[in-house]
């Protein structure tokens, strides 16, 4: 593999049509400057429109109509005309009759340029810059116009520094290293040719309603960065225990309490994970009993310690927390701002969410950043109006099993993961009972909230909220609705840079995601993810069963407690996804994966 080349974020700039080019060369950018005075930005949402007077009602000069969906103002002479294909287009007629020089017009309601001769949208850097400037002015404190990057640049998390990328270099052991390996380790037995199961596939015994734990453990055992961390001995359980023993003043294992009576002194979930990784990847295919791990976890999550069925997601969160807590005690590095430097759990799963709250009265926007280890998504029954649309395209028959890149977000009324992510990042109106204090208005106002992803984690865990517990109505229910999920997922549309960009509509933006959003501009590839594990739930809320599907070497394996079987992709796609684990594409090796020792 060649050294990684710097991938510049190239927003494919549309080329001007000949008419626009001609217009620019003849008039420069003067006409666009005149338009600037007519730019009206309306909160909320900051849509830009063109009006000579604030209350002007634009009308077509030819037919007097003001109710047409698209009205265009000629940039050369300010004549307003309608454009309503396949009906008559007075805009095109105007361009024709006044030709040359009157082809370029601006949509009065959207402030977007249009070429009446080419009958298509055109883009101009200077014009878009003027519009964007007007829109950002509206969303900054005091309404003062400020430089664009500072308008977007608010409360950046302190430690979101650019990570310098190191060139990839392949490695093979030299002679000295070979000797070292030979003397300090023993080769694993190659698996017998009969079973062609990949390394690390091993059943987990159910210790009494522990499928919630087994399912999550299977996913974690095959989470590439986590697996690599433990298999490369980054957390050595022998050293860790020895260190614990020494610090508490005794080397004998006196139960799990140290001199201070601290129960958790001896238990280290990371050590138990280490032990489990060693056992699971040893080549032994007999089912493994994660009893020690269960016991350690009970120490950590005392309120969940019982033989009752628990929620797999709750276990997942609790487990990450347990690993972090133990490490934090050792190294005293808090989980702040999701930089993941505190422990391996956060290094792998932690990302940063951005929340923008915009005042509906004045447009002022307040931004906050919060770390997160997963994304919980609602699965509501009604997704869009698609239940009314009978899809007539080919995709209607192949919703299941169709290649993901071609799937529209919502087809045939089926809920999709991308549909859930769309809803997650959609602007949401906060009700009148949730009024937000606006710094500019200095009072509580109704507002619009929008979430986006500031920094993607190495591994994204999507949790589907299928279990609803209503303390008000004192009841719980499960949402069984099917959710379609892709095998390859591009998270780019949900990134903060994309969401912010989309607020300006169809524009050439002067800031191409530099400075403020370093992670997206430095490498586009880091927004592509591959699915590697799916935790599914079948059955009722209180009497159900968790099963995990793992994707190894492009094969799918069903992990049902102690039973591992190879299954087809269709089985997985049809299953009821509860937690989906995606890893950054660069960390997922599709082809190689031949983890044979020696």
């Amino acid at each position, binding site marked *: 593999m060649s050294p990684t080349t710097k991938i510049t974020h190239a927003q494919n700039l549309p080329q001007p049509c000949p008419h626009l080019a001609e217009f620019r060369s003849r008039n420069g950018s003067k006409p666009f400057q005149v338009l600037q005075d007519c730019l009206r930005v309306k909160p909320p949402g900051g849509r830009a429109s063109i009006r000579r007077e604030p209350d002007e009602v634009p009308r077509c000069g030819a037919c007097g109509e003001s109710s047409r969906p698209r009205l265009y103002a000629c940039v050369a002479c300010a004549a307003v005309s309608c454009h309503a294909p396949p009906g008559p287009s007075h805009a095109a007629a105007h361009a024709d009759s006044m030709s040359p020089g009157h082809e370029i017009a601006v949509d009065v309601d959207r402030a977007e340029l249009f070429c009446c001769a080419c009958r*298509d*949208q055109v883009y101009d850097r200077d014009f878009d810059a003027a519009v964007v400037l007007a829109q950002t002015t509206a969303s900054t404190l005091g309404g003062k116009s400020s430089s664009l990057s500072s308008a977007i640049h608010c409360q950046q998390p302190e430690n979101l520094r650019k990570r310098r990328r190191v060139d990839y270099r392949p490695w093979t052991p030299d002679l000295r290293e070979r000797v070292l390996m030979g003397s300090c380790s023993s080769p694993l037995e190659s698996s017998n040719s009969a079973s062609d199961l990949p390394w690390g596939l091993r059943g987990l015994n159910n210790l009494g309603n522990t499928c919630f734990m087994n399912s999550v453990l299977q996913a974690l055992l095959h989470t590439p960065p986590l697996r690599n961390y433990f298999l490369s001995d980054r957390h050595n359980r022998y050293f860790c225990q020895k260190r614990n023993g020494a610090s508490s003043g005794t080397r004998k294992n006196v139960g799990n309490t140290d001199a201070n009576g601290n129960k958790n002194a001896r238990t280290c979930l990371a050590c138990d994970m280490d032990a489990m990784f060693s056992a699971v990847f040893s080549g032994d295919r007999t089912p493994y009993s994660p009893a020690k791990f269960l016991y350690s976890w009970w120490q950590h999550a005392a309120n969940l310690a019982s033989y009752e069925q628990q929620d797999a997601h709750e276990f997942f969160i609790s487990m990450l927390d347990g690993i972090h807590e133990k490490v934090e005690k050792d190294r005293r590095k808090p989980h702040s701002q999701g930089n993941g430097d505190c422990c391996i759990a956060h290094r792998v799963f932690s990302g940063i969410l951005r929340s923008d709250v915009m005042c509906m009265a004045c447009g002022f926007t307040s931004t906050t950043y919060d770390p997160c280890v997963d994304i919980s998504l609602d699965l509501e029954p009604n997704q869009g*109006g698609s239940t009314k*649309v009978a899809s007539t395209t080919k995709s209607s028959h192949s919703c299941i099993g169709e290649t993901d890149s071609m799937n*529209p977000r919502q087809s045939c009324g089926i809920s999709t993961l991308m*549909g859930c992510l769309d809803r997650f990042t*959609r*602007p949401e*109106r906060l009700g009148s009972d949730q009024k937000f204090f606006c710094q500019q208005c200095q009072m509580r106002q109704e507002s619009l909230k929008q979430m986006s992803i500031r920094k993607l984690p190495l591994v994204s865990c999507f949790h589907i909220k299928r279990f609803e517990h209503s303390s008000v109505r004192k009841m719980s229910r499960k949402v069984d609705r099917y959710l379609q999920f892709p095998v390859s997922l591009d998270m780019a549309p949900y990134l903060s840079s994309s969401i912010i960009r989309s607020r300006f509509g169809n524009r050439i933006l002067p800031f191409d995601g530099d400075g403020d959003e370093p992670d997206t501009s430095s490498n586009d590839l880091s927004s592509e993810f591959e699915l590697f594990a799916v935790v599914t739930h079948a059955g009722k809320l209180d009497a159900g069963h968790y099963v995990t599907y793992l994707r190894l070497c492009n094969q799918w394996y069903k992990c049902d407690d102690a039973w591992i079987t190879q299954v087809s992709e269709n089985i997985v796609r049809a299953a009821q996804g509860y937690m989906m684990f995606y890893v950054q594409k660069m960390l997922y090796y599709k082809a190689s994966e031949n983890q044979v020792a020696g």
Partner: protein
Amino acid sequence: MLGYWLIESGEKERLMELLRERLIECGWRDEMKALCRSFTKKKGRENVTVDDLVQVITPKGRASVPDSVKAELLQRIRSFLASAAL
């Protein structure tokens, strides 16, 4: 005449904002975006104009507006009529 009143009073502007908000909330806009994307992918980016897209998605768009949204807009127009008649 109603159309004239709707527009001159600024009510149409408000109704459009409301409609826009509802259509975004229920996912209709995302659906239209997806339709545009798949159409553009099929035809090739260089071979598609805004007019083409409008032509393609207008029938689908009109058909897929949720009934609840239609009902709400109609109700607003009715009350506007009632207040204008006074």
